[in-house]
């Protein structure tokens, strides 16, 4: 076995394509995650475009009903599992080691493995377009619509197998960040000194590793129903489709917090920076995050009020759902308290953060309205729900992610995104978002069902649908402006290491950060470490003008690049691909993954010649 590792020499290059493919540097992996997820965002956005164009007029037949089902299924699945989650993970990767004063994550190669499995899982799902057997049962794929008699082609197999593959990536990533945050903080950084974003990452990671096993079991049972003749969700043999709903939503509700908590963390970094005062009520924000994470496990059946669980269960879940709005409200008051009497600076990240707070409040309030189970009976599966989910996931998560992108872009690249373009970008997204999704509240209350293919003019839904479709075009232009802004930044001048005068430790080092991050591991002085450092320096009469000095990278012992993560991920992807095509391929994949793991464990984390 050792022979394998000695035959193929270890990669040493940090440059070029091969350097990126074998990288274990958390900052490069962050970029890989970000770029890949953004490409998936464009794909999902185009799918949304097809949906909006089809619904723009009554009795439209722009696409076939089957294609329409595929579009909304793929749009939602891609956005949830391949855009918002990995974009959040991209920020985890870039920011967490910097924000806790570490040189990398706890398991750099595992981190690379997470990325490659995510990439291959995403590709695997999109292979369904190649064979034109696309999943079409909605993003929560309710049984028994997903069972073989009702979904004859392999679309749902693509869906379940790819999600199993993606789940492996998420759990590996979650484990990695839990250990990193608990175990790799710089001296002086106690738990209650950690930046809020680090806290939210920790909570999100805990939710990831606990919630994904549940959906894994559901997906395994679905796959077995479809391929091995079991009847887990088929009533004809005593199975119960409701079990799928339980397994899905036991996972699905924590998943909702997995999607929103990172954005809340980002916003909690940005608001204090541009209010020039520390976050108001830091402990309350942290504890409300923890409470949300715990209570998030006790509310899942509010997605199932109309399945007939009975009045007792519906009442219990109504109460727990109303209660979970309390910690969420606490956070909103803390953000507003942070702004109160602050010296507000309306930079682009700040605008997006404020947009987040405003839109998230709207989404939160519509959420409370269907936490009440009797009123949910009216709203279930209408466009009202579509409006709600887009206010929290687009107005919430995506605005948080855009805020974070504008905020950390100078740290990632050393260059600033254009502020004017940034503000145009913000207003286009803000207006487009409200034009698209606000009318959906009324459409839903007027009875327009979610996922409907088309409608006749007599329903009176056409006008509002046209506004929504117009809003989509505004959103599209907003995204194009963002892309142009990133593109044009390559020519802009280099900004200093700390353009925002920010409190986080990551701003104390050069931009972009050197491979080893910190030449000397900092001693953390308090919650807003870098503000304290700058104040102390000013008080001492020697204001800080530049980043921490850099040193020769060779003098610092860093993990070496490795091709084993990529190799192992290919194996894992082939196992999944084999289940979808030919079982023999799965065995090949298993063998590759096995060799990968053996090679991996025989390879030291850092190559000996790098040693001191």
């Amino acid at each position, binding site marked *: 076995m050792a022979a394998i590792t000695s035959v193929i020499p270890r990669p040493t290059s940090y440059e070029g394509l091969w350097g990126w493919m074998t990288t274990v540097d958390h900052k490069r992996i962050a970029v890989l995650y970000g770029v890949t997820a953004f490409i998936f965002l464009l794909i999902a956005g185009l799918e949304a475009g097809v949906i909006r164009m089809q619904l723009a007029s009554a009795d439209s037949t722009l696409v076939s009903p089957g294609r329409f089902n595929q579009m909304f299924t793929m749009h939602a699945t891609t956005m949830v599992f391949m855009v918002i989650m990995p974009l959040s993970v991209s920020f985890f990767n870039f920011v967490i080691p910097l924000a806790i004063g570490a040189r990398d994550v706890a398991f750099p190669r595992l981190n690379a493995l997470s990325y490659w499995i995510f990439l291959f899982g995403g590709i695997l799902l999109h292979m369904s377009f190649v064979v034109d057997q696309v999943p079409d049962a909605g993003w929560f794929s309710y049984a028994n619509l997903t069972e073989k008699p009702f979904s004859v082609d392999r679309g749902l197999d693509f869906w379940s197998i790819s999600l199993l593959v993606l789940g492996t990536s998420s759990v590996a990533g979650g484990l990695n960040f839990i250990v990193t945050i608990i175990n790799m903080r710089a001296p002086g950084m106690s738990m209650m000194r950690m930046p809020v974003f680090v806290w939210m990452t920790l909570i999100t990671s805990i939710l990831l590793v*606990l919630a994904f096993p*549940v959906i894994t079991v559901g997906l395994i049972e679905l796959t077995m129903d479809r391929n091995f003749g079991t009847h887990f969700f088929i*009533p*004809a043999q*005593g199975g*119960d489709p*409701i*079990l799928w709903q*339980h*397994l899905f939503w*036991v996972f699905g509700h924590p998943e909702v917090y997995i999607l929103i908590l990172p954005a809340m963390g980002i916003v909690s970094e940005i608001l204090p920076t541009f209010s020039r005062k520390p976050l108001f009520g830091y402990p309350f924000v942290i504890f409300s995050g923890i409470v949300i994470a715990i209570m998030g*496990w*006790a509310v899942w*059946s509010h997605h199932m009020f*109309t399945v*007939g*669980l*009975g*009045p007792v*269960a519906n009442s219990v879940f109504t109460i727990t759902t109303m209660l979970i709005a309390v910690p969420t409200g606490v956070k909103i008051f803390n953000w507003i308290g942070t702004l109160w009497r602050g010296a507000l600076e309306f930079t682009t990240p700040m605008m997006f953060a404020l947009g987040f707070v405003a839109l998230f409040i709207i989404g939160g309030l519509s959420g409370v309205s269907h936490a009440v189970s009797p009123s949910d009976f009216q709203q279930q599966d209408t466009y009202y729900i579509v409006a709600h989910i887009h206010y929290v996931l687009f107005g919430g998560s995506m605005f948080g992610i855009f805020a974070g992108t504008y905020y950390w872009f100078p740290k990632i690249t050393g260059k600033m995104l254009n502020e004017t373009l940034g503000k145009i970008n913000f207003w286009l997204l803000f207006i487009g978002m409200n034009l698209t999704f606000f009318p959906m509240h009324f459409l839903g209350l007027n009875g327009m069902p979610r996922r409907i293919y088309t409608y006749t003019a007599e329903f009176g839904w056409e006008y509002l649908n046209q506004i929504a479709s117009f809003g989509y075009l505004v959103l599209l232009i907003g995204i194009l402006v963002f892309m142009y802004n990133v593109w044009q930044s390559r020519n802009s001048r280099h900004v200093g290491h700390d353009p925002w005068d920010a409190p986080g430790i990551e701003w104390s080092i050069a931009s972009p950060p050197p491979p080893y991050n910190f030449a000397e591991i900092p001693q953390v002085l308090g919650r807003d470490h870098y503000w304290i450092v700058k104040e102390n320096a000013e008080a001492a009469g020697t204001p800080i003008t530049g980043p921490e000095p850099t040193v020769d990278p060779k003098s610092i012992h860093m993990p070496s690049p490795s091709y084993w993560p990529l190799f192992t991920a290919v194996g894992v992807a082939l196992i999944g691909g084999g289940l979808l095509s030919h079982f023999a391929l799965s065995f090949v994949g298993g063998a590759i993954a096995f060799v990968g793991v053996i090679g991996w464990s025989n390879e030291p984390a850092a190559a000996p010649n790098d040693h001191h």
Partner: protein
Amino acid sequence: MAHQTEHTTNHPSTKQYVTIAIILFAITIVEFLLIWDRVGIADDLGASKIPLLVALSAVKFAIVILFYMHLKFDNPFFLRVFVAGLTLAFLVGIAVISLFVGFEGKPRTFAQNTAVPYEEHAEKDSGEAVTGETGAKETDTPIMTGPVTLVVGVAGETLGFDTQSITAASGAEVTISVTNPSANNSHNLVIVKAGTKDAVAADGTAAGPTNDWVTPGDSRVIAHTKLLTPGVDGEVTFTAPAPGTYQFVCTFPGHNFTMFGDFVVN
């Protein structure tokens, strides 16, 4: 070397490990004796052996994680992490099971209605060939003649009837009275020719609720009730047709897959 001495003091010695292994074996033997009918304890204990078995397993579980996995001696952080996962798994599992089975733990009516005994098992136990299933069922239901009222209930919130088979004599005036105790679901009851329930229901879906989800003039339909909204009861009266087996079914869209039974005319 200090490292090593730390281990020898912190971890159980071989002798202790052997003792632990013996305890685990002993508990397993006790568990086995509790349930093995040849020992005779099993019947005396009845259902009370279940909490006993659960408790014994919990003890085994705890011994393994505390001693074999060193949690008793290791940093409490690991114990907390593991117990957190374990507790969450336990609570979520209990919650899902409760939402399904209900707190009484009774099997759901649907399975009860539809289950058939396992032939091989029946053969083994009785030593005789299995008697015809349908024959056994028919003798259980008294044959009605003359004007008769049959009662069919909807089984709570489940999508099922509480009766699997009803019987009447050909030519008798039959009144089927249907109760719908559901708080959420509307139902109807349609008597159809054998094997046509799904087709009738599919066509009924197109007819819509104003027609009680039944196509007007459908030749396969013998009789049907109105659409009964949640909590509302209803009945239908008709003359029992020629002898044979018919079906009764709810044609509310989707219900026909689980809500049906046989209507036998003698």
